[in-house]
């Protein structure tokens, strides 16, 4: 059994939920760690293990308030990983007046081949 990851958000790292049994996958809040590669490593390796034993549908929710450029590279790595997971899709939330976050989501959706759904909050 793949153990779930629950991480509380901090002022510079996002909240993370990776829970196969409850079919919940979420990254939300602020992502500006100094070492983004180190922060996201456990998430990427979890997805590595999840691949091959994935649920029929994996809807990954991104609800980010801010992310730094180092995080953006790692977010693309996560999305590229999701590309290899059967039945994966993304819901990209952005604040209704946050054009930069909307555009960031659109750009990510152009870089990977996964269905993206856009929602405002």
């Amino acid at each position, binding site marked *: 059994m793949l153990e779930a990851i629950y991480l509380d958000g901090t*002022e*510079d790292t996002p909240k993370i939920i990776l829970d196969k049994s409850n079919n919940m996958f979420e990254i939300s809040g602020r992502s*500006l*760690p*100094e*070492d*983004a*590669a180190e922060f996201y490593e456990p998430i990427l390796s979890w997805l590595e293990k999840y691949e091959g034993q994935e649920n029929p549908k994996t809807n990954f929710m991104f609800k980010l308030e*801010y992310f*730094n*450029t*180092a995080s*953006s*590279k*790692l977010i*693309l790595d996560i999305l590229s990983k999701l590309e290899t997971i059967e039945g994966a899709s993304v819901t990209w939330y952005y*604040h209704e*007046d*946050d*054009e*930069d976050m909307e555009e960031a989501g659109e*750009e990510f959706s*152009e*870089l990977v081949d996964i269905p993206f759904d856009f929602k405002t909050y």
Partner: protein
Amino acid sequence: MKYIYDLHKAMLNQNLILVYEGEFTQEITKSVLAMAERNMDSFGEEAAVKRKVFNIMVECLQNITKHAFSYDDDSYGKNSAIFMIGKHQDEYVITSGNAMLNEEVNGLSRKLEEINDLDKEGLKERYKFIIKNGKISDKGGAGLGLIDMARKSGNKLGYDFERVNDKITFFSLKTTISRNKESE
């Protein structure tokens, strides 16, 4: 003690709402961000403008933390640099200054020139190319910080290199963020 009054006047003249001089770390980055956020909240700055200022501050502060050259650890501490925010009627001006090695000046100067030569669409393409093909550096950067600052601000980056001696140069960087959405 006249320097106190002089410094105070200089800050008022430049409309500086925050100045930090010293060592730069992630902890200090977080504190400076929190102070700037509180400051902007205190006079009810528009959320969209606040977000842009915050984003650009993050890239600027983390660039300094990663790249500022420590030229005199004993007297100034590690990564000694300066960071300032000026608030004007129509814009915020985010400026920073840090020492760097002379041999790195040409590379950075070329990079800034290239960024300033690109328009909105060109910056977007450059960003997408680097995020797709680039690698995270040893220092943990994605090579996207300056491009992101230019994109989010919607303005050209201002910069200057002041040679200090045969080893180091002082690098100044200025990003302007409009407070008036219509003018973008």
